[in-house]
């Protein structure tokens, strides 16, 4: 990596601190914090589940973050190590290095960051860099970012840099500008208004040289977005529209059609009741700092999936949805209601209900058949909805039965297009019904047993599944858990396999160590809305995390 300047940077920072007082005095006014994690797995070959031999036998991922803050000043580094990366991690992660380092200072209304940074404009439709260490997702910028508040209520951000791609950079240069206006702070006549208004606008462009022999490609591609976030009492409306000029790329098969996205979320809530309605349309809106890249690499923007993010094993990892960058229309309704204590349904301890409905469809397109001429690709009616990619209706009841027993019961009905979402051509759509009972029994203040029984019933894909989880916790330090996932409905009797796993862990203050042994089903592993495909594996897994 090209981080030769880092040493100089650190030297400067220390010099900066040392000029006024003694070095130690200055350091003592600040604080170093950070975290460390190492995950290692010993792999066993397991032909029953299709877990292949791993030549290294042991693989590991680790990192250490150090952040020093002192008033308005902070700097940090992250060392990462992949020896070699765990199975399912992006293969680009190999070896060791300083993958992240930065320095920031805030002086009155100005804030300056040099080095790596994560940033988001509005809802992220034109710009968002972020990290999900658990997935190996990291598109951090490396460059310069300036934030400035010329007067109360107005915030300006300008940035430029290149994006991280494993231990290297993407080819393109990214430049961005963002303005946020808090109207109630900026304008005297709105100061006392009950309506809180936030307006924002962004412009982001990328530069990448055109070295393509087939097409004449735009070397600079700009995108723009405008948004409003309005709150009045219990109601909130958040809407954003984004537009991108023509950006032929591997994602869109090098067509010259411009891209656009619309994102609207509204909510109403009061004590004991909450409702969210959301809609989204994105059309040809993949935006990367290298037009030839795919997967999760070098994405400049973020198009959130408008589906419920499930947490129960069978629901969360068998058929999770991820946004289709090339085109999608999605809707979601989410409701939460609390039946009061003493009411008919609430009973002695009350009861909560959560309902969620979401659907994601293709946009409706008409091909222009112009791939040999103008390459505009297709036209699309704004309000026409195309084929269903994903549907999810689910209900969750949470109920406390007594001081010792409480439960949460979930029903979900899913439609899932394997062909589109997982890229399995010709695979049938999956229609699945899922039922989950999650019951906790508290023996006393410290000891509790949580059990999950999950069933997934479907005629398609691998058929029916059941999961049983037993988790015993001894507060505040210990846990032990056993889980078995059983593919009892597989048409092929040889594949009616048990995926058992036993795990235990200890934690104290900021430190945690856990060990598990068993089988990991091939599937989709998601954190925070981004997913990756993980192959089947079997073996012993160790994880140590520490925050300080």
């Amino acid at each position, binding site marked *: 990596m090209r981080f030769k300047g880092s040493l100089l940077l650190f030297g400067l920072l220390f010099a900066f601190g040392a000029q006024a007082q003694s070095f130690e005095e200055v350091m003592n006014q600040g604080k*170093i914090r950070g975290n460390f994690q190492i995950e290692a797995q010993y792999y066993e070959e397991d032909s029953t589940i299709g877990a292949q031999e791993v030549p290294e036998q042991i693989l590991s991922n680790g990192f250490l973050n150090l952040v020093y803050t002192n008033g308005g000043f902070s700097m940090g580094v992250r*060392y990462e190590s992949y020896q070699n990366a765990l199975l399912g991690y992006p293969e680009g992660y190999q070896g060791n290095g300083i993958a992240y380092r930065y320095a920031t200072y805030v002086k009155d209304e100005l804030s300056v960051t040099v080095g790596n940074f994560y940033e988001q404009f509005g809802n992220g439709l034109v710009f968002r860099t972020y990290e999900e260490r658990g997935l190996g997702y990291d598109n951090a910028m490396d460059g310069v970012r300036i934030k400035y508040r010329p007067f109360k209520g107005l915030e300006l951000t300008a940035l430029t840099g290149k994006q991280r791609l494993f231990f290297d950079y993407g080819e393109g240069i990214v430049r961005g500008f963002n303005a946020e206006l808090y109207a109630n702070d900026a304008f005297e006549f709105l100061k006392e208004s009950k309506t809180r208004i936030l307006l924002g606008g962004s412009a982001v462009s990328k530069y990448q040289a055109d070295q393509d022999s087939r097409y004449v490609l735009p070397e600079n591609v700009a995108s723009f977005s405008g948004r409003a976030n309005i709150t009045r009492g219990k109601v909130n409306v958040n809407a954003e529209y984004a537009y991108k000029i023509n950006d032929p790329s591997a994602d869109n098969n090098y067509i010259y059609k411009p891209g656009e996205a619309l994102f609207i979320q509204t909510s109403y809530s009061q004590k004991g009741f909450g409702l969210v309605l959301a809609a989204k349309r994105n059309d040809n809106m993949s935006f990367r700092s290298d037009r030839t890249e795919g997967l999760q690499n070098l994405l400049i923007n973020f198009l959130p999936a408008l589906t419920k993010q499930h947490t129960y094993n069978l629901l969360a990892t068998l058929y999770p949805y991820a946004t289709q960058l090339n085109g999608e229309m999605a809707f979601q309704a989410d409701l939460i209601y609390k039946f009061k204590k003493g009411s008919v349904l609430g009973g002695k301890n009350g009861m909560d209900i*959560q309902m969620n409905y979401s659907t994601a469809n293709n946009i409706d397109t008409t091909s222009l058949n112009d791939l040999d001429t103008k390459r505009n690709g297709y036209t699309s009616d704004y309000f026409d909805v195309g084929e269903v990619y994903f549907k999810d209706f689910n209900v969750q009841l949470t109920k406390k039965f007594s001081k010792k027993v409480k439960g949460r019961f979930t029903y979900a009905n899913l439609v899932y297009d394997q062909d589109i979402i997982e890229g399995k051509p010709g695979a049938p759509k999956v229609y699945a019904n899922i039922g989950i009972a999650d019951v906790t029994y508290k023996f006393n203040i410290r000891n509790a047993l949580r059990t999950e029984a999950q069933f997934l019933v479907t005629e398609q894909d691998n058929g029916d599944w059941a999961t049983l989880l037993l988790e015993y916790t001894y507060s505040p330090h210990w846990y032990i858990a056993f889980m078995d996932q059983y593919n009892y409905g597989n048409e092929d009797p040889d594949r009616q396999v048990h995926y058992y796993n036993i795990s235990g862990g200890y934690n104290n203050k900021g430190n945690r160590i856990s060990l598990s042994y068993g089988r990991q089903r091939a599937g989709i592993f998601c954190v925070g809305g981004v997913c990756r495909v993980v192959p089947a594996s079997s073996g012993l897994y160790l994880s140590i*995390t520490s925050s300080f």
Partner: protein
Amino acid sequence: MKHFKLFLTVIGLAISSLAWAQGQNNSIPEVDIQNLNGTTFSTGDIKNDGKPIIINFWATWCSPCKRELNNITEMYDTWVDETGVKLVAISIDDTRNMAKVAPYVNGKGWEYDVYIDPNGDFKRALGVNNIPHTFLVDGQGQIVWQHNSYNEGDEYELYELVQKLAEGEKID
């Protein structure tokens, strides 16, 4: 190894940090996060008049986080009456789920101060890796304790520590 010098610097920093840890100022780092209506909020403004503060990182997609905060809710009134403690819940939800935070908080009847850290700035500044992650801040605004993960019943240990802080005792 090209970055050996830099690597040494990092290790040096780490060791130095341990040596300095005793006398250090361990106040809440100042970064910008968001109110539930999307406006900016500086974490330097997390204050509680010399009484203890609990800072808890959670997300709408994190089951143990929600179990923890829902369990605390049942006792929160008593906690506040007895110790004056304030719980600040920091959601790390991103755009996908941000709109669900306020309805969830109100729907569950939480009385905590809730903010959103969509860019992860506060999370990084405090060295948070996985959630739930809880910090305890004493009456002088110093972070004195932290805990990662949630086991059923952990709130009793947390409250014992809060009571100690409220009475001016040190915890280690």
